[in-house]
């Protein structure tokens, strides 16, 4: 029944909308949180975002898949006639593929956007009007990116070892997780800070990787030590070389000879630092970068204009 003319109304009184609004009741409110508490809340949310079931499964699948691919690649290479033994392939494969390509990629994808996503989604405005300092938000988001990146990096490395089952030395099971963690920490710090400073963080990250981790790291001479890759490789070789050398003749010959850089043999090798100094350098770089990130975040204007 559709009625054409609307019946005249009675007096004009405030309309009771279908959802009653009770203004009086409101929850008790407490003052500003201790910084650590704020940190844990923001980090918790970041982890919850990263470890969503769908993304979690996809990430694990990719990591294990890549690990398997590298392992099989190494095995395929190993069967070719006059090629060096499988252990050598694994040893060099990790150095070439994992350290120089995949771990930076994991850091770029998982840690890079973790802070800049808040800017892109403009949800940073909610944090700016809440009693949580900008430093806490930046560091908490960063850590909520580093942890998954470290875990997935470890998964990648260990899946290589597992699929290759080349009788790798036990030291590997401790060294690789450490390596994955430091890669995620240092490279993650760089990408996260770049994401915070530049509007197109991803491109800045790629530019950095290309300039520093490819060109500078590939230059002969001590300039290599400027790149993060050098220190990561120092740590890697420092931790695993003795164990691998025992088991693999190929590794031994490579070590006894000049330590040739895996990527371009022409470059006259730079001797690696001992693992302790490598760890110090990596931590130092990460700290410096994070300080730059924090000072930027504290002092910048957040216009959040699209």
């Amino acid at each position, binding site marked *: 029944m559709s009625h054409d003319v609307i019946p005249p109304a009675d007096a004009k009184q405030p309309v009771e*909308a279908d959802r009653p*609004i*009770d203004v009086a009741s409101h929850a008790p409110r*407490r003052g*500003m949180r201790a910084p650590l508490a704020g940190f844990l809340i923001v980090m918790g949310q970041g982890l919850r975002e990263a470890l969503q079931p769908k993304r979690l499964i996809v990430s694990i699948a990719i990591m294990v898949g890549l690990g398997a691919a590298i392992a099989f690649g190494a095995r395929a290479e190993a069967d070719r006639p006059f090629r060096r033994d499988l252990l050598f392939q694994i040893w060099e494969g990790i150095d070439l593929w994992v350290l120089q390509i995949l771990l930076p990629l994991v850091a770029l994808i998982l840690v890079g956007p973790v802070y800049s996503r808040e800017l892109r989604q403009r949800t940073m*405005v909610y944090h700016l009007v809440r*009693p949580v300092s900008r430093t806490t938000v930046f560091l908490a988001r960063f850590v909520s990116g580093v942890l998954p990146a470290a875990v997935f990096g470890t998964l990648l490395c260990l899946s290589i070892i597992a699929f290759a089952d080349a009788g790798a030395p036990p030291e590997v099971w401790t060294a690789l997780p450490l390596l994955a963690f430091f890669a995620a920490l240092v490279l993650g710090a760089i990408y996260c800070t770049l994401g915070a400073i530049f509007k197109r963080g991803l491109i800045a990250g790629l530019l950095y990787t290309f300039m520093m981790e490819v060109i500078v790291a590939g230059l002969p001479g001590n300039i290599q030590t400027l790149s993060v890759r050098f220190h990561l490789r120092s740590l890697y070789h420092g931790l695993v070389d003795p164990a691998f050398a025992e088991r693999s003749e190929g590794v031994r010959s490579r070590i006894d000879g000049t330590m040739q850089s895996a990527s371009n043999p022409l470059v006259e090798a730079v001797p690696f630092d001992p693992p302790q100094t490598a760890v110090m350098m990596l931590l130092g770089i990460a700290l410096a970068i994070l300080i730059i990130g924090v000072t930027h975040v504290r002092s910048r204007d957040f216009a959040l204009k699209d």
Partner: protein
Amino acid sequence: MSAAQAGIVLDRISKWYGEVMALNEVSAEFGPGVTGLLGPNGAGKSTLIKLICGMLQPNLGQVLVNGKTPFNRPSVMTRVGLCPEQDALYPQTSAWNALTYLTRLQGFSARDARMGARRALERVGLENDLGRSVAGYSKGMRQRFKLAQALAHDPDVIILDEPLNGLDPPGRRTFSELIRALGAEGKCLLVSSHILHEVESVARRIVVLNFGRVLADGTSRELRRELPEFPLTVRLTTSEPAELARHIVAIDGARRVEHVDGGLEVLTHHPAEFFDAVSELATSGTVPIEAVTPMDEDLEAVFRYLTQ
């Protein structure tokens, strides 16, 4: 926090992005009650709001929110709530989780935050969409989420940037009433909007910005009175316009008379004398005057004159 410091103080604020001047020596104080913030696009409204929320740092002058400068000082934000203009969404999480997270940042315990978030979402009418992710929300529902987020922690200073944007009529009326009620409660509300009649319905005091400067600050009546250069237009509804016109012209206050359908429109520079004369004329009954309606005393007219 003493009552004197409650609210917002802007002391000769200037702000520019590169060479673009966004605010030019803006001074204003916002105490308890609802204040309307108006101005054409690009007048500096959103810059002002971001300065108050501590997102931007003024190049000159000082911003005080509840007595302290908000930039990089999160403790000020415990009592501040902002409903931003642009859509700010957490696409992966549900509305309830997102709001619980944000409310916990306000210093509430997990349980309090969860309860407060739920109540806030119910308050804005999202009770049966708590579990759904905000990405699937319609424009109106996203706006309600933003409002819930601004009110969940019961702030004293609430800044609303285009609060009714995208809401349907029932929603608009509900939230207008809510804003009025919060203002009546003594909270300091700043409502920035382009829809003047809605601002007029919630705020008595209006601050008008244009080209980064404060053009006017007061109730729309006061502002109209302070614009003497614009004569007041009054429409007199009558069945005998010609006859009425003869009398009106005789009144010295009447500057110009125009015939419009249904009566006359009269411009006058001396409203007091003019209205007295009209009253007298009406009571004398020489000519029937059914209605007297001032046409440009409302906020839209005031705004038009100010930003001409």
